[in-house]
């Protein structure tokens, strides 16, 4: 009997939907505090920096600093929502509550469980990003109908960071491990992806390096869309995000199988 190949492509069934619905049912019970929790931090940052710093900076790339920052924060809120769900919440279900262990006793494979978690984290990212978008729009910093096209971009950013987060989750021994990823990967990424200031401020080498980061491509799509323009190099940005989404999920599948299917 040959050993399972950890690198085999994910074998999925529609049972992943049951996993997604499990998480959705839990969330229904805590929806309001959860939304507030997801939004409070970016909103405080946005309004603090947008009005405070914005008064000094004035215009940035032809728009108000607040509008510039708002677009960056819509993308970033999706990144953080997906990441929190794929790290802390998924780790609770995988390791602490043994929820995954119970589920795989049913006719659901580990790949299905991961697909459900992946889709769920992206759903939370979409809802967090959409809430940000609504608030930003309410203050008049989003143009429609282009602004609506930001929604699929928010989802794609969510999928990219869900996949990456689940891969990190598969390597974690405890919650502490996640702070390395948050501080050493996500925080620098936020600085280098044109959220607070245009990347052109940076040395050429840093700019080149930053262009491999998924958040950079997310911001590059969301910002023009919110100001009512079609993003230049649209296809390139979408392809990079899609590659992160697919690659991240595949990596998460391989690493989680290695961790749990011993």
């Amino acid at each position, binding site marked *: 009997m040959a050993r399972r190949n950890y690198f085999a492509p994910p074998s999925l069934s529609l049972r992943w939907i049951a996993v997604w619905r499990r998480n959705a*049912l839990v969330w229904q019970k805590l929806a309001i505090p959860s939304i507030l929790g997801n939004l409070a931090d970016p909103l405080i940052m946005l309004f603090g920096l947008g009005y405070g710093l914005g008064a000094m900076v004035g215009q940035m790339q032809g728009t108000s600093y607040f509008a510039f920052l708002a677009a960056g924060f819509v993308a970033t809120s999706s990144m953080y929502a997906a990441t929190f769900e794929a790290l802390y919440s998924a780790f609770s279900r995988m390791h602490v509550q043994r929820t995954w262990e*119970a589920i795989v006793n049913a006719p659901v*494979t580990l790949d299905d469980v991961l697909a459900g978690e992946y889709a769920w984290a992206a759903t939370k990212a979409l809802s967090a990003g959409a809430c940000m978008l609504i608030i930003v729009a309410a203050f008049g910093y989003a143009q429609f109908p282009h602004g609506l096209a930001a929604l699929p971009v928010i989802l794609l950013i969510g999928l990219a960071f869900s996949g990456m987060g689940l891969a990190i989750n598969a390597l974690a021994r405890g919650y502490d491990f996640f702070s390395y990823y948050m501080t050493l990967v996500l925080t620098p990424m936020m600085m280098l992806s044109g959220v607070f200031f245009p990347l052109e401020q940076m040395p050429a080498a840093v700019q080149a390096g930053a262009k491999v980061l998924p958040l950079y491509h997310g911001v590059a799509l969301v910002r023009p869309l919110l100001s009512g323009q079609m993003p230049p190099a649209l296809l390139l940005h979408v392809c990079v995000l899609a590659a992160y989404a697919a690659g991240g999920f595949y990596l998460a599948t391989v690493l989680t199988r290695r961790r749990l*299917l011993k």
Partner: protein
Amino acid sequence: MRGLRKSFGDLEVVGGVDLEVASGECFGLLGPNGAGKTTTLKLCLGLADPDAGEIELLGEPVPRRAREARARVGVVPQFDSLDPDFTVAENLLVFGRYFGISQREMASRIPALLEFAGLSARGEARINTLSGGMKRRLTLARALVNDPQLIVMDEPTTGLDPQARHLIWERLRQLTQQGKTLVLTTHFMEEAERLCQRLAIMDHGRIIAQGSPRSLIAEHTERQVVEVHGPGVEDWMAQAKRLAPRVERVGDTVFCYAEDVASILKDLSAKSDLTYLHRAASLEDVFLKLTGRDLRD
């Protein structure tokens, strides 16, 4: 399963296991901690891949068609994995979805499952308000959501008090009467003796004995046991070895195993510095004889 093997690195956890469980029987897998019981069950459910050997679960080859086989199996895992975010009834509902059972269908099944678990009044209770015994019964009810043919249980009563344990045993007997096949691991000999028609004793990844509880006792140990302890036990050892075919000393206690213990009892009745207990040999004696008395941690 035939010729089943599984190693983690250099450690062979399952080393050539052959087992067959007949439909409708209650089969017990006994063994000390670390004997390979849990790994054997995981292999059988297709949740880990064997290094060698063949497995068939309800007619399906495993791990290739493990998902299809698991659709007809219920599992009670060793560790509590109930969903703390849900109520008792929601735990059942959500678990049913993993089998593709619709909300409406589950709504009609839940009352009977709650009654089976003795939790009819607690459907809306949160998991953290339940006692250990209630949680275990709910886990058992959860394993029945798909009306399985086979129920696999990993230490179903570990950590429960006697009342809770007896209630679980009673429920398991009900399931056997309904014609379900039960496979359980345990290290409670009493549990195995009461519930199982057939047992296998496992140690160091191998099956070292197999049969009905009664035949295992008859085959592997003398019929009677006298346990002796007291200040004079040191001096009495030599005498014990003359009177009983098999004598074991554990700390301050001497175990004498024999078919006929009349001469031992007669000898002991004259010794005022020794206390003794005379009893029939049990499965525990077989277990200790076959797996030794060393601690397993």
